[in-house]
């Protein structure tokens, strides 16, 4: 690759290079600082509104109370133990499903699939991220819970298991996309070296490439987990929302209620200032603290991994052999791996096979796992590739089922009038024009807010990190913001923008709330993309006398654009389909005129869909048609962005 050389000398400068550099550095730092300020504000506002419940009922009876009964008579009970248990159970289950499937699929896409297959599978998976959570929820409620009820012979399928499956599916695109990026950026010479030494493909993948990409894969898992913990609308439609701790604790068929679900179903109808209202803010604080804790732990683990595998350079220079700080002996690790494998596979097998086949599966898997080391590398490879292909096929099948369900029911109701007219008869007839426009306004505002800030912050974190205390704080802030559930953003937007700043329920409140929500995704993916650029390029540029900013803007950013665009795609998809953050901040059910100022409320597709699905009887056709439009809109965004990305990928090689 020929490097674009900095043309410093030729350009006249108004500002001396040094001042310019400092200025840019400051701007970037302040971008990054926004993350910290936001986290601080969110916490402050939630605590402000959540404090009364602690002072009233006492911190122990709130945190350790086993009964959540806001309408209890004569005493209201606000004990959050069942809610916390529900959140943990559902999230763990979701990860047990999504992590193996996701990583297998990522390996398949990044390393095994022929280019033609890859070109189909990758966008398809990104599409999975674009399906709005309300659609997942409705699909889960109608198809999945019914299937669970019939398969397991339980009275109701609304359960922990249903929640975990839906959340697992929803976390998949994030996990796959980010791990695939990480796997793809392990340098080619590593795999070439390994293959040259006589290792099989599978040995190369499992012992060289995956360890080399481990920091990226861990990041993927955490991003996915963040999505699972924070998901509201889908989970509240399928878990049954009974505020009980599963009994016995491993009863995956018990209904559960998550912290987010509680906020989602109760926040909308509670009177501001009542004890119930404060209790819900208390719940939000707990939710935030849990996600912050998970993130902190995860960040620490990733930091360790990065040090362990890639001193100084997280991606592109992994050293798989240097396992210095390992806690377990190789022998124990091997055993732990087998146990983990069996545990994970049995969890996947549970929904897939029913009780009878399930025991057989566990037996079979155990057999395979036990004899794993005695098999020849070729057989191992065959088995591994079989599972990987099966996982990828499963993911694609899920996508196909959900998409065809929506398309078959929605396409017939789609017409020109539907796209261009305002709704009539409560959305049962007429169109959804104001909702389309409203969603576009919301997404444009959100991305216009988040993209400059996010890219600035990512550049600061990735390129200007003098790993001082400040950088560390900024980085932690971003990590924390990333794990913050979308409903918490919604509550914050409501408490801060709508009530405190008196914006009212308005377009601008929704745009800022959505913008804040997608900011961490933008930062995260941009950072990963920047890190994928080999350090040698930077060194070359700097050695030629270019300043830091010249290096960043002309050498580092251009090849990182595909990655940055991927981040933007994921964000747009997410912003367009989110209901929770705009539920309390921006939307009205129906509107005759388009919003005429940033301070008037808007209609939005996901909310319209949500209301049609839950509050308007007899709107079947338009409900699915709305889902189709939302999907097509997202596909349109994706198509443009994927086009840009493919264009760049063709032209970037090193």
């Amino acid at each position: 690759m020929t490097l674009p050389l900095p043309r410093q000398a030729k350009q006249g400068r108004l500002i001396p290079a040094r001042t310019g550099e400092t200025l840019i550095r400051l701007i970037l730092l302040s971008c990054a600082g926004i993350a910290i300020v936001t986290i601080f504000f969110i916490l402050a506002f939630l605590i402000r509104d959540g404090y009364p419940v602690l002072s009233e009922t006492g911190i122990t009876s709130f945190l350790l109370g086993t009964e959540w009964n806001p309408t209890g008579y004569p005493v209201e009970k606000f004990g959050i133990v069942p809610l916390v248990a529900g959140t943990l159970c559902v999230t763990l289950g979701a990860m047990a499903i999504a992590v193996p499937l996701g990583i297998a699929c990522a390996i398949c896409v990044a390393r095994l699939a022929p280019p033609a297959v890859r070109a189909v599978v990758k966008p398809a998976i990104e599409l999975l991220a674009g399906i709005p959570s309300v659609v997942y929820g409705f699909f889960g409620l109608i198809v999945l819970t019914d299937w669970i009820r019939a398969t397991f012979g339980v009275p109701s399928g609304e359960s922990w298991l249903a929640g975990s499956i839906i959340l697992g599916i929803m976390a998949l695109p994030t996990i796959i996309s980010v791990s695939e990026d990480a796997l793809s950026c392990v340098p080619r010479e590593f795999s070439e070296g390994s293959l040259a030494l006589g290792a099989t493909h599978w040995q190369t993948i499992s012992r060289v490439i995956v360890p080399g990409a481990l920091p990226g894969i861990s990041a993927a898992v955490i991003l996915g987990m963040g999505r699972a913990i924070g998901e509201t609308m889908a989970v509240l439609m399928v878990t049954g929302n009974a505020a009980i701790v599963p009994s016995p604790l491993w009863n995956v068929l018990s209904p559960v209620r998550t912290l987010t679900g509680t906020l989602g179903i109760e926040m909308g109808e509670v009177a501001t200032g009542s004890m119930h209202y404060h209790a819900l803010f208390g719940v939000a604080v707990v939710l935030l603290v849990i996600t912050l804790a998970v993130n902190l732990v995860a960040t620490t683990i990733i930091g360790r991994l990065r040090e362990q595998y890639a001193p100084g350079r997280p991606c592109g220079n992994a050293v798989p052999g240097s396992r210095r700080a390992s806690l377990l002996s190789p022998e124990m690790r091997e055993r732990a791996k087998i146990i983990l494998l069996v545990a994970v596979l049995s969890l996947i097998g549970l929904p897939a096979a029913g009780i009878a086949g399930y025991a057989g599966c566990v037996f079979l898997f155990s057999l395979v796992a036990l004899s794993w080391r005695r098999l020849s590398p070729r057989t191992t490879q065959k088995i591994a590739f079989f599972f990987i292909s099966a996982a990828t096929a499963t993911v694609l099948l899920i996508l196909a089922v959900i998409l065809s369900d929506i398309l078959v029911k929605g396409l017939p109701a789609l017409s020109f009038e539907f796209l261009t007219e305002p709704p009539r008869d409560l959305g049962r007839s007429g169109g959804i024009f104001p909702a389309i426009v409203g969603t576009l306004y919301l997404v444009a505002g959100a991305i216009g807010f988040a993209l400059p800030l996010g890219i600035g912050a990512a550049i600061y974190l990735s390129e200007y990190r003098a790993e001082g205390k400040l950088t560390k704080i900024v980085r932690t802030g971003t990590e924390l913001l990333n794990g913050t559930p979308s409903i918490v953003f919604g509550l914050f937007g409501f408490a801060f923008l709508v009530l405190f700043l008196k914006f009212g329920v308005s377009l601008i409140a929704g745009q800022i709330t959505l913008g804040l929500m997608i900011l961490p995704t933008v930062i995260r993916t941009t950072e990963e993309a920047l890190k994928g650029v080999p350090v040698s390029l930077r060194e070359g540029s700097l050695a030629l006398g270019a300043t830091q900013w010249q290096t960043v803007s002309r050498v580092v950013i251009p090849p990182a654009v595909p990655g940055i665009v991927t981040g933007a795609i994921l964000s747009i998809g997410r912003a367009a389909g989110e209901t929770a953050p705009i539920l309390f901040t921006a939307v009205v059910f129906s509107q005759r005129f388009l919003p005429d100022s940033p301070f008037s409320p808007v209609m939005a597709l996901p909310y319209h869909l949500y209301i049609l699905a839950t509050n308007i009887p007899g709107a079947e056709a338009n409900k699915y048609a709305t889902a189709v439009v939302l999907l097509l809109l997202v596909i349109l965004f994706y198509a443009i962005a994927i086009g840009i990305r493919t264009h760049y990928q063709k032209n970037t090689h090193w």
Partner: protein
Amino acid sequence: MNGMRNPASIATLLALILVMALLACGCTQQAGSQPPTTTSPGKTRESITLSGSTTVLPVAQAAADAYMNTHANAEIMVIGGGSSVGIQAAGEGTASIGMSSRDLKAEEKTRYPGLVSTVIGNDGIALIVHPSNTVGPLTLEQVKGIYQGKYTNWKDLGGPDMAIVVAGRDSASGTREFFHEKVMNKEDFVAGQLEKNSNGAVKQTVAQTPGAIGYVGLGYIDGTVRAVPILVNGTPIEPSVRMVLDRKYPISRPLILVTKGEPAGLAKDYITFLLGPEGQKILEKEGFVPLGQA
């Protein structure tokens, strides 16, 4: 290689996004700063917001649409949120009209003494089960027993041998509050109750779960669920508009619009419209019980 092309493209991309964002804000602001164009000259656009109960929302919205069709200068926006939110919004003056599906509580009356409520219709709450469930009419006492967890199998109530799945509304819902007072006498619900945040979701669950029971407004009853008659003094009463009108069906409640002081201007015109024949027809079409003569 095209190293030089890349920065230019990023700049274009960023510029495009910025323009999009500015466009979104810019054109809206422009539109906002100009006086809105109205179809009939001499009269400026008047706008009110309604906020509150999601039960009343469909009626309020449908009536607003009908009203706006004939009054081009009126803009009526309807926002959900729940009865408590509606009463509060009216009391605080953040909405012109609050919608509620229950009477004002004593504490709400003392907090906002100036509130005036207007009953616009009634809503019957029906108990629904899966169409395959053959259970006969239930007394209110039995319904209460089901929701308390005293009965766990339909055979205890003369139905098929099948576990009962109890479905209800979330604890912030006005419908649940009403049910809690009227049917449960404020006693606690069974802890394993499935909680749903809308009538539609309750119906959906009941329609696909053979053992389930739920409660929804009359407008939600269709072929996918079966409404259970309620035994009153030995007579089974079907949940229907007729029976609520005749005051025979025991579980019904008023739909209320709340205003701060006597309604005036557009709010008054709108409420008058709702109480008139056209408004009442809309109400009935949405599955609610019109005021009638009684």
